[in-house]
């Protein structure tokens, strides 16, 4: 075997990368399971509060506020990382380097600098815009994304509200954000954004249906709508899949069809290439957010990436066994799986052309929808005959 000859730069990069990975694994092992840690800390805080005679309701509110802040903080950091990552991935796919200057090491601070720039920019409201709709649209788009995270399990039991109807909740709430896109399209007073908004509405509403239906087989097998329960179901020991973990993606036929439909619909829901017709740059300039700049624009941006992460997290929880995995704590496994799915999103975006509107609809109604029904039928038959 001939080993590749590495240059000094490659050796250094490999060294730094393995160092980063080792540090991440070390930190993960040191922290351990999150719920245990959090419970410990919260117990001590409660003990302190009891000493000072703070009423229980204050502590409840404080708990909620802290959870909200953690989610907001997590979304911001995850999005910043994903934007940087996307720029790096796309750059390397296109035989260039991407950001290399800001912050020193491979431009790691580029997104932070961009975020600061966006926050400091002037807020421009176009003359023809209707001010209130224009103002509310980014909020209506972003808030549902944020709300959905409440029911997303970051590994075993690391969940802010463990709803019995977790999946239903996430689908329902994330569906609201399309309203924001329509509002943005209409409120901007621009023909391009209007076309973009209309396209987005048609697309999101259509793709929501096969997306929900693709999850139905999993609900039938797992017998629960609780995301933690579904994830836990997949981490049980296996009898009929000897080599593979009992993840839904490894269920013959049912798992793969569900996974593919869910993944395709998730890409469509997040308006990313090849389904980015709502903001198709070469056709509609910037689609529904043509008239947005600065802070408001960054909200759309944040929402898009938050939804990408949410979809990937759901994929990880529904199909890839959530936080199940050896050695490392469950939240770390969850993050690894989620970012692996995020990478799929990026891969699609930088290698595929854009689909056309009518073909997009055809694809949804004539291909994805029938197949998800077939999938449900097969699952039902299998469950009866099992």
């Amino acid at each position: 075997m001939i080993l590749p000859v590495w240059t000094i730069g490659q050796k250094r990069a490999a060294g730094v990368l393995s160092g980063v990975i080792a540090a991440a694994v070390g930190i993960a092992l040191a922290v351990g399971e999150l719920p245990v840690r959090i419970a410990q800390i919260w117990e001590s805080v409660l003990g302190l509060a009891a000493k000072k005679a703070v009423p229980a309701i204050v502590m409840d509110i404080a708990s909620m506020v802290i959870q909200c802040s953690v989610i907001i903080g997590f979304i911001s950091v995850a999005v910043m990382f994903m934007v940087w990552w996307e720029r790096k991935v796309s750059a390397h796919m296109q035989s260039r380097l991407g950001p290399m200057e800001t912050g020193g090491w491979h431009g790691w601070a580029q997104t932070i600098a961009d975020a600061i720039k966006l926050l400091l920019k002037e807020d421009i409201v176009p003359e023809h815009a209707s001010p209130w709709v224009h103002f509310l649209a980014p909020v209506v788009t972003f808030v549902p994304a944020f709300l959905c995270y409440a029911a997303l399990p970051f590994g075993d039991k690391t969940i802010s509200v463990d709803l019995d109807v977790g999946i239903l909740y996430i689908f329902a709430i994330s569906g609201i954000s399309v309203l924001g896109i329509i509002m943005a399209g209409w409120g901007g007073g621009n023909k391009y954004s209007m076309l973009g908004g209309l396209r987005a509405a048609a697309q999101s509403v259509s793709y929501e249906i096969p997306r929900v239906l693709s999850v139905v087989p999993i609900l039938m097998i797992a017998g629960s709508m609780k995301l933690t329960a579904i994830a836990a179901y997949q981490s049980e020991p296996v009898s009929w899949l000897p080599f593979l973990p009992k993840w839904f993606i490894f269920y013959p036929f049912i798992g793969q069809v569900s996974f593919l439909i869910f993944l395709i619909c998730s890409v469509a829901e997040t308006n990313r290439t090849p389904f980015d017709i709502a903001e198709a740059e070469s056709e509609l300039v910037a689609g529904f957010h043509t008239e947005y700049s600065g802070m408001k624009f960054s909200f759309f941006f944040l929402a898009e990436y938050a939804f990408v992460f949410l979809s990937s997290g759901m994929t990880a929880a529904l199909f890839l066994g959530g936080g199940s995995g050896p050695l490392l704590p469950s939240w770390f496994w969850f993050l690894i799986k989620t970012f692996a799915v995020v990478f799929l999103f990026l891969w699609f975006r930088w290698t595929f052309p854009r689909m056309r509107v009518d073909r997009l609809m055809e694809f949804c109604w004539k291909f994805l929808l029938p197949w998800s029904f077939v999938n449900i039928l097969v699952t039902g038959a299998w469950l009866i005959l099992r």
Partner: protein
Amino acid sequence: MTTEVIKIKGADLQTEEMILNLGPQHPSTHGVLRVILKLDGEVIIAAEPEVGYLHRGTEKLAENRTYPQMLVISDRWDYLSAMSNNLVWCLAVEKLLQIKPPEKADHLRVIMVELNRIASHLVFFGTYGIDIGAYTPFLHAFREREKILDLFEEVSGARMTYNYIRIGGVMADLPADWVGKCRSFLEWMKDRFPEYDTLLTGNPIFQDRTKGIGVLSQAQAITYGVTGPNLRGSGINFDLRKDEPYCSYEKFKFDVPTGANGDCWDRYWVRIQEMKESVKIVEQALDGLPAGETNAKVPRILRPPMGETYAQIEAPRGSLGIYTISDANDKPYRVHVRAPSFINLTMLQEILVGQKVSDVVATLGSIDIVLGEVDR
């Protein structure tokens, strides 16, 4: 018998048409083209391309410039293939002056023009990907184009406006080692075509977006005077390099690829094949590169005899022609440029009708216009 008129409630309701200005500032009009679209929903019912935003009056400028001075301006028509522009101007003036450039100059001209054709088609390939929504091919294409521009920089000193092909020959002989570099580039380029096929040509979404879109029938193509890859995409085998050879093109073996349906896909496919043919031509020209002079004897001040002439070549975008009238002065009396981009653009108003907004961009991109040449 009485005719009963049933009045349906709301039958007199109408949807409004929307007028959309595509451009002059729009990401994918390839410059400053403006297309006024009349839309019914997303379907186009009328399209009117409006040109002139980049008009610089080069034809008028020519009347106040001497013949060699005009060469500099010719670089600025189709700035993606400036070599072709140089060549056609030189051919026109040489025809007036009755000069025959030496054989080596002919070969060098062919090499440069064909390399420039590859570079120009690479820009088409990359930007067409962006028009369709695929961003990655663009940078791959520009990586290759960069190498061609490096080669041009070595021979001419410039990367965009070469001014290399001169009246009576070329600016200078090739630098030492240039032939080797060019050969290694061609070998490298050959390996890139399969890469393009996997990246864009073979993509089902791309094929879906281009096949059957923007169909230009043979009759329409001839009526509108369309030339170049757009004409060949419609299935008409017409190439000036074959049909009316200049610069010793008759010595080289190459095929003229033609499409079948005249849709965006055919126009795209023809261009990709043409790049492969150009690689072949450059290889043959390098193989048979004769020794000798690179310039014919040209008088210091050019005063062509009274008369008029028309010279035309197969530029990357179609037949590029120059019509000049000489009044035995050192400046042309009148110059007219037959710009293929401008003439190809006229078909847009006919083939866009009935398509969707997203097809406008696909169609516009497939015609491959350069606004510098459209407006001149």
